[in-house]
């Protein structure tokens, strides 16, 4: 079970980030602090969801451009700044998918798949099992896939998932449990057909 998001910031870090945000609001050149802090996480976030490195670089640049232009509208209301950036990234990626110019990808490590295995209460880690799970993931729609990615592959807290996808914490929980059931059913069917 995931208890604490690795993306969690300590209170001091939040205060420091708030100062950086206020600085960036008054002078966009000072956005650099935030850019340097979040460039790699955002790039990795994007890269794991799209095919091709160049597309990932382009989308990441656009995410920060959007963030710079909208930072004056950002208000800290309990939601971390990083969640705001990830939300921009999710929207940008979705837009690219809808235009059919960028292909959706789900890039995952074997280690990250273990979390799915844990949740699905299966101990099998064979090649065929991975194949079945990947096929089951392929059956999910975009929102479902995002929830799986955020929760199992990136180990984010439900609160943060809600902030990124703009849904409530409870809603993200409910939806994820439904997705798990859906995957389980798919896996059962695959097992039987095999």
């Amino acid at each position: 079970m995931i208890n604490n998001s690795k993306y969690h910031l300590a209170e001091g870090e939040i205060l420091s980030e708030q100062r950086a945000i206020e600085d960036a609001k008054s002078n966009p050149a000072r956005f650099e602090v935030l850019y340097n802090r979040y460039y790699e996480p955002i790039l990795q976030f994007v890269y794991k969801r799209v095919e091709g490195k160049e597309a990932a670089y382009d989308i990441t640049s656009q995410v920060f451009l959007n963030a710079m232009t909208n930072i004056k509208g950002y208000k800290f209301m309990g939601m971390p700044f990083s969640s705001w950036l990830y939300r921009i990234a999710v929207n940008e990626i979705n837009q690219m998918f809808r235009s059919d110019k960028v292909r959706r990808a789900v890039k995952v490590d074997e280690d990250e798949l273990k979390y799915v295995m844990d949740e699905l209460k299966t101990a099998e880690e064979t090649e065929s099992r991975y194949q079945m799970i990947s096929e089951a993931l392929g059956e999910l729609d975009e929102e479902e896939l995002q929830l799986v990615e955020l929760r199992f592959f990136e180990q984010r807290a439900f609160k943060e998932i809600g902030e990124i996808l703009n849904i409530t914490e409870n809603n993200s929980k409910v939806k994820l449990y439904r997705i798990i059931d859906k995957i389980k059913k798919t896996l059962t069917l695959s097992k039987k057909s095999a």
Partner: protein
Amino acid sequence: MEDKKVNINIGYEKLTQEEINSHKNFGKVYQTYVSTGVKPMKVAKKFPYTKLLIVATVSTVVTVGVWKYKSSSHQNGKTPATAKTSPSSTNKAVAKTHDSLKRKFIHPPLKGVDVPYMSYNVQSSKGGMFTYKKSKITIPANAFCDENGKDVSGDVKINYREFHDAIDFFVSGIPMTYDSAGKTYNFESAGMLDIQGTLNGKPVFIKPGKDIQIAMSSFQTGTKYNVYKLDTIQKNWAYQGKSNYKMEKAQKTVIKKQVNIAIQQFSAKDTIAVKQKIDVVKQEEKKLEAEKPLPPVKTNEQNYKCIIDVDSSEFPELAVYKNVKFEVDPSNKDYNPKWATTEWTDAKLTRKGSSEDYIFTVSKGNIKHDILVHPTFEGQDYKVALKEYNQKYAQYQTKLDKKIEEEKKQKEAYEKMMAEFKKKEAEESEKRLEIQKQNELLEAKNEKVRQENARLAAEYQEKNSRSIEKQKQLLEEEEARRLVQNNVINYLNIKQFGIINCDNPDMLPQGAQLIPTYVDDKKDNLNNTTVFMVRKDRNQIIEFYPGHYCNFNPLERNFAWAVTPDHKIAIYSEEEFSKINKTKGEFTFEMTVLNNAFASEDDVREALKPYMD
């Protein structure tokens, strides 16, 4: 499964730290942000690549076709520095996607409504002059060339228009902000013009050294205005200079010109005639002087004499006398009495100036003698001559007196005219100085009012008390009183076609900064539209883009409007502004939608006029 776009990639190729670092470049993102002047909008607005490519293509065409005003985004009070790097030279990927976020640089907000051009044909080889309302445009001969710098011939079509108030600025969609040294200013305008030239539909250019001179009529007082040219490539205004555009100087030039014209007219019509009369009189006096009779002199028996037959028309001073004998002056030491009996082949008498001395020249072959002689009279002839002289001299003197009197009279007339003219000139000069003085006083007063205004705004914001309301009212009344409209001429030398602006860059108004929500009278959201706010006490329009704060000075007279999605105008009146009781935090502007249809600028003017006064 084959149709699924999702590609599940287990154990994918990781990005290396080197790859990440090589693409981590805040400078490029920042340059793109600055150079394209992107505006805040809803987070992650969607822009399909297909559209992006079309926009990027249009942008490229526009960059090449300098003459047309298209492409790009609005400048706004958010960009922190001027940037000279084009998107294509920075981060291609960013620029490509980023173009989609831009609005057109010149963006008339009402479809089909713009300030119309007036067209004039000017023969390139001759140049010409035309007027637009109260402005005068002068084009020198051979002023145009083509894109290769070659002279063009034929009728060049000049398209010309001017912008003078908030409604002109609004419908034109020309950005009225100026980015300088990392700050964004809003223009307070003293007039703007747009001039273009084409030959057979192709753009022509102004040749170096062949500036087009424009005397642009304006209504704004003050000396604070600079001149800017709109750079549609860099998407910013380029500072051109400050001098020659001061209202006082322009006014002085006009008056000076008027005085010069007056002198020319005066000289041509009146003084020349008088002077000619004086000259005639003087010539007549000179002629009369030649007729002045010489006093007769008695013959000296000791001196030699000769009789010379003179032509009275040649020597009018002698014409009155009879039996004149020319006496040889004793100074002629070489005089030989035999000369009197010599047959000379030529003889000539010449008067020495207006004296009584004459030179009698005789010659024969190589021999020539100049003999100094004087006219004299013997015996009774002298008496007759003297009597004749007295009569003729009296007649001469009478004539001369008349001429002198006539000359005096003409001179007096001339002097009177000059005195009148000098008086007029002095009056004009005095008037000019008075205008200058008034303008200086007015500007000083305006500056004082502005300073007081700013001070009260700060005080108002700090105290936010009701007692300031009274001061506000008084201040408004004072500002209303000092609002005068003078007819000012701004003299501009145009070196390139384009949009030229006489402006004063001004910071955003201070006093209140609200987080606005704009809705119409049906509570429908207007947050995605730009709101235009007029500072009624200045010739200034401020654009608040979606997501921006609404900054205004509660002590000023403000009025705002927005264009609704169905191309109507929703207004927020001065009265409503005056009732806003907060200076910070969120505020909902409930705007009233006007039912007018807008097909022309006049329609817009008619609809907004009741709120502008």
